[in-house]
């Protein structure tokens, strides 16, 4: 066996079998030896189970499940698996078949068999890049093809070898080769995918899920059992005609559970078929004919299974990608909100400072009145009432800011459009007035409610208004003016919200890249504001556009559909 090499990963490969990751050299070797002996035992045991008779030295078994098992090891860990096969063939020949062949012939048979399969396994691994997870149709086809090639090569080599050494004559070759070929192929086709899917892949086993699948499994087994007894119970010719019945449970399992379903149902069918045929005393010729039919069933089942698996996994991948994208978008939107608010922080501090100033002055007034004997208590009371209103106002600013920042995941609700617009404008008004920009809301009375994430939609408006403020102050204009216009429109029913400013307009160069990430006209912007607006509005089924880029009447607009079905 090759020493530890770059294939160390492969050595550790058979996790379900070899056990834990063993890091030291000796324990690694010990683990490998354990795996090898387990497979050897499995091979010999299966050989014993499936052995029926020998025809002039060639083990005529109706199928070769042991080969399928060891072939799985070979495509999984590489050619080293050939040693297991060689040892297995020789051991089985001597102890199970109790072959009367001389030992050099036995060794020759073992060597040729292991060589043939080592060759095709290496080709599959190195040149055809077989993915042992059998995720794609291609991998299943490659596996079937190399199994077929291996069986063919092995059959030809063995026939030639036995002919040369006089163990067979020409007449016997076809008689012996056909069952060998079919038996080997069916062994690989049924057992190798089963092992690769269930033994070599470390999977999480969820007992609850297994339990939920149990009734369905019982149903398939019952169907397979019924079909098999119908086939085997009837007369020979009739039985072949009824073989199609087996397609029903296998294809059903493949369609419902993909490749895993196909592998399991095929294994059950195969073992059941062999067992029943054996019990009913069919002869070897009938076995081979059944096995040929079984091969067709196996190929069909595996192909349907893998195609279904492929589609299921691509569906799942698409769903996962979509979920990740959504999460990322929510994260980006939140980051942009922080950016937005940190830009507004000084204005917001001012916004809170004003009610604080008023509240403090009123508190001192009330205190002064109350400390003066015969003071006007009514006046003090009215001062305190006004003071509470100011404190509430400050608290409102803090709460809105906190709400605005905190929300990560979108939260869809029915939103009163006007109040949403007003709330967003209160957040930005402080900054506007600090920059001597006048902000005005012009919302028509028939504004309907919209469905969506309130905070995100406020963010869109805030972004557009802030951009307008920055454009105005950036141009050094003394009289800034922003008008937020909201209208209900028909065909398609929607709300359109426009942000108009009398800033310097948008130049040609910027207009082309306006909605690209990182395109910014500002010195300290991230350039993510508009792309995030676009992503938010589009996730609400609407769109954002530059309605007018003229100086003095620049307008950005976004639309929100009213048709509820368009809202995510």
């Amino acid at each position, binding site marked *: 066996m090759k020493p530890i090499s770059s294939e160390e990963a492969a050595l550790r490969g058979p996790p379900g079998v070899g056990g834990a990751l063993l890091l030291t050299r000796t324990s690694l070797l010990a683990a490998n030896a354990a795996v090898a002996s387990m497979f050897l035992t499995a091979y010999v045991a299966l050989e014993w189970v499936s052995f029926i008779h020998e025809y002039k030295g060639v083990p005529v078994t109706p199928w070769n499940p042991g080969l399928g098992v060891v072939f799985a090891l070979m495509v999984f860990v590489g050619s080293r698996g050939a040693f297991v096969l060689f040892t297995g063939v020789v051991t089985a020949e001597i102890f199970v078949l109790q072959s009367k062949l001389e030992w050099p012939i036995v060794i020759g048979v073992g060597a040729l068999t292991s060589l043939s399969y080592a060759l095709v396994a290496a080709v599959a691994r190195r040149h055809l890049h077989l993915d042992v997870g059998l995720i794609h149709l291609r991998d299943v086809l490659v596996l079937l093809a190399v199994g077929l090639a291996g069986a063919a090569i092995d059959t030809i080599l063995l026939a030639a070898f036995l002919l040369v050494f006089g163990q067979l004559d020409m007449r016997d070759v076809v008689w012996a080769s056909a069952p060998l070929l079919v038996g080997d192929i069916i062994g690989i086709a049924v057992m190798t995918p089963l092992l690769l899917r269930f033994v070599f892949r470390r999977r999480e086993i969820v007992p609850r899920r297994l339990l939920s699948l149990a009734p369905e499994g019982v149903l398939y087994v019952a169907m397979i059992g019924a079909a098999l007894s119908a086939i085997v119970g009837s007369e020979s010719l009739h039985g072949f005609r009824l073989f199609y019945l087996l397609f029903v449970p296998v294809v059903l399992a493949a369609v419902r559970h993909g490749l895993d379903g196909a592998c399991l149902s095929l294994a059950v069918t195969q073992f059941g078929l062999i067992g029943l045929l054996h019990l009913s005393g069919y002869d070897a010729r009938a076995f081979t004919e059944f096995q040929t039919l079984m091969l067709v069933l196996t190929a069909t089942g595996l192909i349907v299974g893998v195609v279904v698996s492929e589609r299921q996994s691509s569906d799942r991948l698409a769903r996962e990608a979509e979920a990740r994208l959504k999460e990322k978008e929510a994260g980006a939107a939140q980051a942009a909100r922080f950016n937005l608010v940190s830009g507004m922080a000084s204005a917001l501090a001012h916004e809170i400072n*004003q009610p*604080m100033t008023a509240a*403090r002055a009123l508190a001192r007034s009330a205190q*002064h009145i109350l400390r003066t004997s015969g003071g006007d208590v009514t006046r003090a009371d009215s001062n305190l009432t006004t003071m509470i209103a100011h404190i509430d106002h400050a608290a409102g600013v803090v709460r809105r800011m906190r709400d605005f920042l905190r929300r990560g995941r979108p939260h869809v609700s029915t939103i009163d459009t006007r109040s949403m617009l007003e709330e967003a404008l209160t957040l930005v008004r402080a900054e506007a007035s600090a920059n001597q920009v006048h902000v005005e809301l012009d919302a028509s009375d028939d504004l309907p409610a919209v469905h969506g994430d309130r905070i995100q939609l406020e963010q869109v408006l805030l972004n557009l208004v802030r951009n307008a403020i920055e454009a105005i102050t950036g141009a050094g204009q003394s009289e800034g003016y922003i008008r937020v216009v909201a209208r209900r429109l028909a065909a398609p029913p929607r709300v359109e919200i426009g942000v108009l400013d009398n800033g310097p307009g948008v130049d040609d160069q910027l207009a082309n890249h306006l909605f690209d990430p990182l395109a910014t006209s500002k010195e300290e912007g991230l350039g993510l504001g508009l792309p995030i607006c676009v992503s938010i509005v589009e996730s609400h089924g609407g769109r954002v556009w530059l309605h007018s880029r003229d100086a003095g009447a620049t307008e950005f607009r976004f639309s929100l559909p009213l048709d509820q079905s368009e809202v995510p």
Partner: protein
Amino acid sequence: MPVQTIFVIDDHESVRDALGEMLSVFGFTVETYDSADTFLLQAIDQRRSGCVVADVRMPGTDGIELVRELGRRKIALPVVLISGHADVPMAVAAIKSGAEDFIEKPVDDTQLVAAINRALARTFEQQDLRKSQEALGLKFARLTPRQVEIFDLVVQGFTSHAIAAKLNLSVRTVESYRAEIMEKMQAESVAVLVRQAIRLGRIAP
């Protein structure tokens, strides 16, 4: 003595009203304005006196510009500036412009009242000074040209004899002029007369 008025100027109604209420509870006479421009248009009058309390950041004329504008118009109203965006450059600009004080929002009333009182006290002093100056000018105006001539010579240190010789008058006539001058100027001594002459700018101090 005219009424001392506190003019509170802030574009934020809540702040304007609350500060106004507080100062009025403290006993000041208060008027509030929503902008420096309104204040300059409506309230400015040479005879008004008191103290302005103004926000720095306001639409239109801002607080610092207001202090400069009052200076340009030679209106001696002290200004206490308040701001929610207080930073060092702003405070420096405020004091340089001639503001009485610069106070951060939320306003500490002790600091505000102290600044207002300081400003008003200085106003009172200045008003006293101006009044006595005016009174002196009036007294001086009552002198005849001959008396003015003799006033100037007396404060320059000439004796009655020297003045008599200089003006070709008798010493007795000079003495009587001197007595009339001292009476009109309400000066008890030549020393007082000299101080008055300095204040009137007739001689260098």
